[in-house]
């Protein structure tokens, strides 16, 4: 199998690594780099559990090849909390019971993280549509939606 050398920025840090050309980004992050926070739920791009942010846009890391991140900026769930402090969105998930088994959670967080950056004041329906590509079997979505709205409101209230 042919390998390629990659240079990229991961959660704010410059990284170099090599990956087989056929390896998808989720497997590369999980097994190549040991960042197991990103989860694989369906491997055909529907469930959204593997969502990460590449160059600012949420992507399905099971549908993207690892070699495509050469030169890119990649953000994963491991990069959300800073200095041991949960991000406002993460804290809102805890406060609103936006997770149960936690398996879809990293994908939900990354989808919403990217969404809230471009939609600072969403309606409930906006949030529901934003996560309509992420499947959760545990929560019935309501806690997740409430968490996103709370995080957005908290952000909006800051000067």
């Amino acid at each position, binding site marked *: *199998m042919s390998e390629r050398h990659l240079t990229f920025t991961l959660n704010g840090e410059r990284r170099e690594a090599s990956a*087989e050309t*056929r*390896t998808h980004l989720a*497997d590369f992050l*999980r*097994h190549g780099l*040991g*960042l*197991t*926070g*990103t*989860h*694989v*739920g*369906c*491997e*055909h791009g*529907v*469930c959204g*559990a593997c969502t990460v942010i590449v160059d600012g846009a949420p992507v399905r890391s099971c549908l993207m090849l690892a070699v495509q991140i050469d030169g890119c900026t990649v953000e*994963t*769930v*491991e990069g*959300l*909390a800073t200095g041991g402090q*949960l991000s406002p969105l*993460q804290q809102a*998930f*805890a*406060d609103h*019971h936006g*997770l*149960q*088994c*936690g*398996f*879809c*959670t*990293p994908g939900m*967080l990354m989808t919403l993280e990217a969404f809230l950056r471009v939609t600072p004041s969403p309606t*409930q329906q906006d*949030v*529901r*549509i934003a*996560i*309509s*590509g*992420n*499947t*959760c*079997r*545990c*929560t*019935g*979505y*309501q*806690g*997740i*939606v409430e968490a996103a709205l709370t995080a957005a409101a908290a952000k909006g209230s800051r000067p």
Partner: protein
Amino acid sequence: MSARYFGAAVTRVEDPRLLTGRGRYVDDSEFPGMLHAAFVRASVAHGRIRSVDTGEASGMPGVVAIYTMADFAGIAQGQMPPMAPHPLLPTPITYHPLAVEEVRHVGEAIAIVLADDRARAEDAAAAVSLDIEELPAVADAVLASKAGAPRADSKRPSNIAATMKAGFSDCGAVFAKADHVLTERFDIHRGGCHSMECRGVVASVDPHSDVLTLSTSSQSPYMVRRHLATYLNRDESQIHIMTPDVGGGFGPKANVYPEEFAVALAALKTARPVKWIEDRQEHFVATTQQRGQVWTLDVAFDHDGRMRAIRGHCVHDNGAYAPYGLILPATALASFPGPYALEALDLTIDVVLTNLVPTSPVRGACRPNAAFLLERLADRIARHLGIDRQEVRRRSFVRADQMPYSTGMKARDGSPISYDSGDYIAALDLVLHKIDASGFQARRAAAAKRGKLLGLGIASCVEDTGLGPFEGASVRVTPAGKVVVSTGASSQGQGHRTALAQIAADALGVDLNDVRVETADTSKFPLGMSTIASRIAVTAGSSVELASQKVRAKAIAFASHKLEVGEQDLELEGGAVRVKGVPGLNVSLSEISRTLAGNVGMSLPGAMEPDLAATAYFNSTALTFAYGANACEVEIDPETGDVRVVRYVVVHDCGKLINPLIVDGQIRGGVVHGIGNALFERMIYDEAGQPLTTTYADYLLPLASEMPPIEIHHMETPSPRNPIGVKGAGEGGTIPAAACVISAVENALGSNAPFIHLHPISPQQVMKWLELSGSAAQA
């Protein structure tokens, strides 16, 4: 005990880890020298294995070994042990870890490929050449139950694996005297489970101790240990099972699977760690599914709508194997008569083998089926008599003054089933009030102006919870004064660590953050059952309470001895035993623990037993009964047949709430699962047993964009059957939800609509009903 935490909506101790990517699921573990497994699976639903040619695959890059069952002959052979033996199944219908001679459903594992990474294992699995002589298959349980149908298992004389009966009193006599009798046929579709984490297992053998360790995404780790020990002829002490974080269970992960055995056998054979992680396509063809049943029911009722008796027959689609015995059909029967005070009941279920992946409980097991049947019959009676649906229920439900109420049915162990407490009519009244049923006609008229058909649905249910025999817990105060709770009860995301910590923290007067809960590691706690059937709050929760109270009593006895104060004057608070009303006079739990850990040659104070710790098992000798009443509104677009659930209100009573945040989450998730069953989730097979829905492009799961906000109201009737007054809450959301949605759809379609006897429904089906009922023209 001061209830500081019990009943409070405290946020979960599990969350910070899971929110920051520090969860540890089975696939997250890595071991040096680990091999990755992929399975070679049957591509036909029924066939005789002529040969398995591994020649080409064996030589492929990275491939270490390819095994069929014959290769394991020196370690173990034969069928897997039955998980729940039943006298009606004298010959267990269980898998071999890898298929021998015959395959009976698409997806059955035939060979295991081991390679140095998963991709290479899959490459090689695809290169294994199977020669399978195809045999006639049956993919439809009703067809399979008929004489002359192809046999799903060529070694069994009939596709009817068992015929089960349940009921009470003389149905014939009640039917003879009833004012009315109606007969309806119901078709409840087989759906999948789809925990977001598929199954997975990592097996390894420690060369020094010869202990076989499995980290498995199981709801039943102790069952895995017991059955693996039996199968391998090993002592249980030589098998260690643990469940790490598990990404959802919902029932299917309660089974002991052939893949778990095959991976364990491969680890024993290679003496290397072996990991297998199920992918989603495998989940569609190899993880158990459920709910496929066809019922014909007669219902007898009076002029005023009072439901008096039900009799009928069910064809239960069992699938190709019965790893969990007859649990599923037995649960379908035991879920009758629901909230209805029937005079007689007479049910028969034919458990039918088909060439499809086996069925087993999924979130509610067959309780949602029973709720669908009973609630549909109640609606049917109302329409027949031209009275309000709620009146049928009000006149037919078990009343609060009848509690405890003996239903006439028997539990699995043969004991009579009796509902412990509750007020089913009050729950119905409350939900109708909360959804503003009296304002519905105005809302319907407003919707009609927008060209939409609005419908109101109602459904009630009773849920047996707290299934025995037991769960246990040990509670130990460490020398640092922290509390460690260990239980055999596994967790798949329900928040057990938080809920159990709440109970222990209150009993011992410590901060919640000072309690750590360990779940389902067979090396840490000796016995456990399964996290199924909404039983953990009752069984494990009560055992934590009992063990904590023993620890508390010991701490008080110690402090009484040391401080020379009567026990009645002592209390536990702030991590210490304190003299009531005397600030500063106390002895810390930390000091008691350190003292009871002993010093060499020194006696323990008061000749007490060592260690500030205790173990207790709660033996659940009688079921607890949660219940609920749901109401929802759906809006139908008559131009497309699209059905949207626009409001959903739940009234739920699971006794004392340990943590309302967690209970609400369980209920909401369950409701959405039930809405999925009603409107979206469809597992389609062709006549030859080939699954046609094996991706999420074909099999539709409920998504946030289609789900309504779900409003929850609690009633709190404590159960008298356990020390903390709780009832289970894991499935109460799902059980009535499909019935509630379908009731609303039928209501939206109008009085001329056909009786809806099935789910899931589709927009195409709705368009046909609209045409038949003329409702489209009315909108």
